[in-house]
């Protein structure tokens, strides 16, 4: 069964705007992680949030976690063209990533 499922599938915004992506999962977790993947390359770890945390910041990234709704969101503020990539969430159960959210930031 799929652990991480991202929404929306694709998001296109202008540089400087904020981008919000959502992730839902099905079972209890110890932590949830967000990754970025540039076209056809390896995944880059962005941020890990533990099940007892509600919000976490890292630079322009803000991640929230709502374990009661089994959902998480990733906010990228003041987006840049270099943020264009696919974004995935994954839980610690290491089953399946979702299809990801393809973010395009237009200059």
């Amino acid at each position, binding site marked *: 069964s799929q652990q991480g499922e991202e929404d929306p599938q694709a998001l296109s915004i202008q540089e400087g705007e904020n981008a919000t992506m959502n992730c839902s999962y099905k079972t209890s977790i110890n932590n949830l*992680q967000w990754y970025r993947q540039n076209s*056809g390359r*390896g*995944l880059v770890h962005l941020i890990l949030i533990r099940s007892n945390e509600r919000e976490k910041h890292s630079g322009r990234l803000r991640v929230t976690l709502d374990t009661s709704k089994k959902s998480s969101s990733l906010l990228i503020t003041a987006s840049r063209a270099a943020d264009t990539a696919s974004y*995935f969430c994954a839980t610690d159960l*290491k089953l399946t*990533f979702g299809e990801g959210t393809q973010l395009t930031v237009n200059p």
Partner: protein
Amino acid sequence: DAGVTQSPTHLIKTRGQQVTLRCSPKSGHDTVSWYQQALGQGPQFIFQYYEEEERQRGNFPDRFSGHQFPNYSSELNVNALLLGDSALYLCASSPGLAKEFFGPGTRLTVL
């Protein structure tokens, strides 16, 4: 400190053949996981190795097997290749059950 490295970068095989992909984990990492990522899809977990043993396995047939060596490096073997095995194969390492660091992947094409 080198990150996770994988070899080869690209590989072309034909149906029915066997393939071995290699992964060297980041220094200090003892756990290696393998993922398959088809075009346009998210990575799918194949299996994870720790202390030279398979610790977890995803929904993949027995044609997919692996090995971890005493130096923590790992191999992924796929037998009797099918066209559908064409994908990007990602290796990730971690110190135990902490966040994973991914390698650049091996692009396998099966003709």
